[in-house]
């Protein structure tokens, strides 16, 4: 159990700076998810916490101890990799026991701890198998088990679910959440999938181009995005962006409005032409072309009437749902 603090952490590869000063404060037992598009530096950040990448400047501390110069094995962390990184020549049992054996844990205790983890992860029938004889979901569990048995201070997850199929991903997501809650271990989880971020995180960090754009509870981030990037990245379908001029207003920047807050109305603030619609069962997404040709999306209940393709419709919304962003992309 430990806290984790990053202070003004920067990372350069040669002359290129990829992380431009990130501050994070993870409380003991908290589940933090870092989410962002590929190339935003989220994995690099995680690897710096793990000690697999050097920190160019700033400090990383675990439980108050600065670990910048500390080797990965001395940081008291465990990591789950995207490709699981299991030891292919060892059985599931040996994979999980590896760290304990190196730490010279007494044999009965190793067996007890592995057995407990295997029970928790439903891996008991597979302990003598090799990783190649397991399915993707089972391998994922072994990787989790390997992290759990060592009882580390911090769990690090590097896109652990992205190699699984959609159904398994949902199931494992739930398992990870339950497990983390039961064990109460401080966790840092990296993903590009905003659904994972929304569902897993106590607090989430949205990263963009090497900068943490916003840190906050998932619903808070969703309801109150601090930058246009966050508003566009979090939420599916993404936020509609309008130029003030389209609404007859002056000023630079843009106005964001989420698809569920827009409705088709007899008269409204904006006219648009219906392009196509996607009926998803419980809800329907109506895509429209705005006055400047950009795509807008309206999310409505399945029962609502769907405009015909090419029909001219009016869009309306409550003004207090508007999110106004300045020319720099920050919330005005």
């Amino acid at each position, binding site marked *: 159990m430990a806290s984790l603090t990053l202070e003004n952490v920067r990372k350069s590869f040669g002359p290129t700076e990829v992380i431009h000063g990130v501050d994070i404060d993870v409380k003991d037992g908290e589940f933090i998810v870092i989410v962002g598009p590929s190339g935003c530096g989220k994995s690099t950040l995680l690897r710096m916490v793990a000690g697999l990448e050097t920190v160019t400047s700033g400090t990383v501390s675990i439980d108050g101890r600065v670990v910048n110069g500390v080797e*990965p*094995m001395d940081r008291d962390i465990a990591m789950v*990799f995207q490709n699981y990184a299991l030891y292919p*020549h060892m059985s599931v049992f040996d994979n999980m026991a*590896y760290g304990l054996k190196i730490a010279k844990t007494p044999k009965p205790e190793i067996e007890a701890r592995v057995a407990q983890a295997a029970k928790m992860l439903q891996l008991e029938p597979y302990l003598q198998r090799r990783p190649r004889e397991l399915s993707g979901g089972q391998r994922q569990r072994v990787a989790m088990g390997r992290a759990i048995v060592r009882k580390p201070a911090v769990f690090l997850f590097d896109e652990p679910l992205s190699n699984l199929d959609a159904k398994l991903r949902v199931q494992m997501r739930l398992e990870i959440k339950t497990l983390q809650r039961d064990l109460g271990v401080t966790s840092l989880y990296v993903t590009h999938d905003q659904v994972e971020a929304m569902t897993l995180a106590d607090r989430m960090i949205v990263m963009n181009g090497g900068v943490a754009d916003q840190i906050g509870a998932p619903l808070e981030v969703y309801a109150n995005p601090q930058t246009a990037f966050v508003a566009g990245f979090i939420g599916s379908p993404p936020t509609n962006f309008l130029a003030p001029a389209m609404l007859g207003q002056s000023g630079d920047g843009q106005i964001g409005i989420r698809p569920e807050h827009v409705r088709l109305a007899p008269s409204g603030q904006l006219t648009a032409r219906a392009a196509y619609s996607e009926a998803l069962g419980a809800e329907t997404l109506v895509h429209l072309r705005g006055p400047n040709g950009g795509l807008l999306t309206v999310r409505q209940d399945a029962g609502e009437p769907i405009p015909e393709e090419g029909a001219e419709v009016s869009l309306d919304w409550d003004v207090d749902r508007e999110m106004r962003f300045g020319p720099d992309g920050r919330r005005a």
Partner: protein
Amino acid sequence: MEKRVTFKGVWLPLLLVLPQLVITAVFFFYPAGQAVWQSLFIPDPFGLSMQWVGLGNFEYLLSDPYYRASFVTTAVFSVLVTVVSMGVALVLAVLADRLIKGSGAYRTLLIWPYAVAPAVAGVLWMFMFNTRVGVVTWYLGQLGYDWNHVLNGTEAMGLVVVASAWGRISYNFLFFLAGLQAIPRSVIEAAAIDGARFWTRFRTIVWPLLSPTTFFLLVVNIIYAFFETFGVIHTITAGGPQQSTTILVYKVYADGFVGQDLGSSAAQSVILLVVVSILTIVQFKFVERRVHY
């Protein structure tokens, strides 16, 4: 979908493989057959007639202390060449694998010796260690060591081992490096996070995952040491002093072409043929199961 090329008829495919078949027949099956045939005879000193002796040549060979000694010499030589060339290559490959900057130049330099023919390598080492004009010999003399591989059998063995292993290091290095780079980086990183330091990682993760490469190289290097080191031995020691570097393949040459005992030489060739066949079978049996995971 059939992706392999298929031919109708027999003649075109036969024509296409004919060059390879002819080469194999002329340069392998014919001489090998001749060796088997000749091993059953003793020719007279002028090569005018041959006398049938059946397995007499083999019986004589296997009871010949010199021939048995040559077996031991070959075993010692092969083991040393294999261990030295693979050991050094592994160390260099591990270092190259950790290198980030300049690895290209480093690799190129390490691969160069492979392009040197064994006989040329032999001459190179012979000059360096020449008892009268050798550079290394002179430095050793300065240090108070009197190097003379022409008289000292152990030194002669050491020199041919080093000269044979030298060019081989490049080849082994390439395979070891490829093997090391095939190990996923994240597996090594996972081991590091699990608490394994460099040596523990090497012993418990890298070495086992490298074992298919190691085994392949072991077989290939032993075969190399058995057969392809002729040039090195011929140029440096010519099998001496006192047969101390006469490996089996050199004895075939020495007895046949120098000693003119063609029957015995042919019988030795046949024995070598059997040895290399066994080694090849072993290699294919195990290399088939190369994939470790």
